[in-house]
């Protein structure tokens, strides 16, 4: 079904102008000669030539590679004019009263040849162009599908990161703190709730748009640290030292806050005396560097579980490939330094 539709398409595309010309030529010739003339016979010849050429073209399978493609026009070049050149010969035999210039085989053959090739060759080229176009479309379609899958995977990764971020322990412990403050110091309860709300709200728009900026990330970090400061009291000291000039630089959402939360959860909280966290940022010509440094317990053994960086690493790799990096190093006497390097200027998930 589709094949014939393709052929019909080609016919309409290439055949129609030629058909029109052919029809005009044939009509002109027939009118000129009148019904009984040899030119009528020639008109019939040309019509049949066109018909045969079209049949030959339709029989050319689309999948034939280029060299063989020419077999049809060549075959047609020989057979069809030869066949159609017979018409005038037969006509002259059948109707000796026909008027018009006497035929010569060469003349009729030549006429048939020109007509045949004029129809077949453009048709072949048109078909080939169609095939190429179809192949290109197939490749483009495959690439689009790949991109869609890629985007879908990225969206899933973002969703996972978002789900992981609203951690029940954090939420319920914070609310338990607010519960106490509501009775004992409502103004402080208010402030803590504000920080909590800022923290929770800041994740969602970033996740939807797929991109964040240094400024937005640091706002979320600040909200988180403000909450933890109330909860841990003097056990948490922190400082955010990132030049405000970098605030507009793009970053994958939740990248910095993930590292800060790890520092608090795994570095500071396990220590009775607590510790301090410092967030630093800088940029050279090509990349943005963000450093999260703590003096907490650090990594106490050779092997460890779940610092939850897999998702962040995956997203960095998906967006930047090898150009972005996340490095963790042990600090002396204790603590961890996490260094996030991202190429300047790009960083959107989407």
């Amino acid at each position: 079904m589709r094949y014939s539709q393709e052929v019909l398409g080609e016919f309409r595309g290439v055949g129609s102008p030629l058909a029109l010309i052919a029809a005009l030529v044939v009509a002109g010739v027939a009118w000129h000669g009148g019904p009984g003339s040899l030119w009528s016979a020639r008109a019939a010849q040309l019509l049949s030539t066109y018909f045969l050429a079209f049949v030959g073209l339709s029989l050319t399978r689309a999948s034939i590679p280029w060299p063989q493609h020419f077999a049809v026009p060549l075959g047609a070049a020989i057979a069809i004019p030869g066949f159609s050149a017979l018409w005038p010969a037969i006509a002259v035999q059948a109707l000796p009263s026909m008027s018009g210039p006497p035929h010569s085989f060469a003349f009729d053959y030549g006429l048939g040849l020109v007509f045949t090739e004029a129809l077949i060759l453009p048709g072949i080229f048109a078909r080939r162009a169609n095939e190429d176009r179809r192949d290109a479309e197939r490749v483009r379609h495959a690439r689009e599908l790949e991109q869609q899958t890629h985007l879908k995977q990225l969206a899933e990764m973002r969703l996972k990161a978002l789900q992981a971020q609203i951690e029940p322990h954090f939420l319920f412990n914070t609310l338990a703190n607010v519960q106490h403050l509501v009775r004992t110091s409502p103004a402080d309860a208010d402030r803590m709730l504000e920080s909590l709300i800022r923290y929770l709200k800041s994740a969602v728009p970033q996740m939807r748009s797929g991109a964040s900026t240094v400024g937005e990330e640091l706002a979320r970090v600040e909200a988180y640290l403000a909450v933890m400061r109330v909860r841990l009291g003097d056990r948490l000291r922190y400082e955010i030292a990132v030049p405000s000039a970098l605030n507009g630089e793009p970053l994958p959402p939740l990248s910095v806050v993930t590292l800060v939360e790890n520092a608090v959860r795994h570095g500071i909280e396990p220590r009775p005396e607590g510790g301090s966290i410092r967030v630093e940022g800088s940029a050279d010509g090509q990349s943005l560097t963000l450093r999260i440094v703590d003096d907490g317990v650090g990594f106490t053994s050779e092997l460890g579980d779940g610092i939850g960086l897999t998702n962040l690493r995956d997203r960095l790799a998906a967006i930047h490939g090898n150009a972005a990096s996340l490095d963790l190093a042990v600090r002396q006497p204790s603590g961890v330094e996490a260094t996030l390097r991202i190429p300047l200027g790009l960083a959107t998930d989407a």
Partner: protein
Amino acid sequence: MPSPPTAVIVEDEDLLRSELRDQLVTLWPELRIVAEAADGVSALRAFNEHRPDVVFLDIRIPAMSGIEVAELVSGRAHVVFVTAHQEFAVAAFEQGAVDYVVKPIETGRLAATVSRLKERLAHHPPDLTGLLAQLRAATDGEKIRWIQASVGNKIRIIPTEEVIYFQSEAKYTRVAADRGDMHIRRSIKELTEQLDPAAFWQVNRGIIVNIARVEEVLRDGDHLSIRLRGRPEKLPVSHPFHHLFRRT
């Protein structure tokens, strides 16, 4: 008159400690809270000094986990766990073998816990070893995700995803990674127990590979070897592990 019941509260966050204290004072005025501790070590010190009847114990505390403290006071004091999230869907909790309090505290539920405790005080504190072993298993079951080792003069931490393969050598295990090789002390045997079996396969007695890095499987008659992305070497797969690479 029997002496009033005594309790120690172990909770690292100041405000939460205060809240639990305030609510207990209201719901159980006879209870004497003899000490408060903010970490595992202080908790044990307070326990040894005061020998309370009840210990309210937060599970996530610094210096020592709440579970470790519970193991040490088990059978000597009634333990009530305090947790922000009932993450351990352990049968014993559900059966009521030991009490727990969820944060934020709901007064009604704390009141129910208090009446149960009053009844329990008539009896000797139960041995919690079985339950605690289950809790430990629930938390320790996590597979390792990162490796720390010296690379040159720095100590690097890399996630297990970046490991290409582990290979046992004379005294250490070599960790082959993109950024360079490093050495750790854990044996191949220990690693097979701790690595995620969905991501790492042992292929012979001394080698564990990251299966995401397997690029080529080479068969030469009866011999099987694999090549990993990023490394030229061919690693032999011994017979017991051939089934892993069987074509389906």
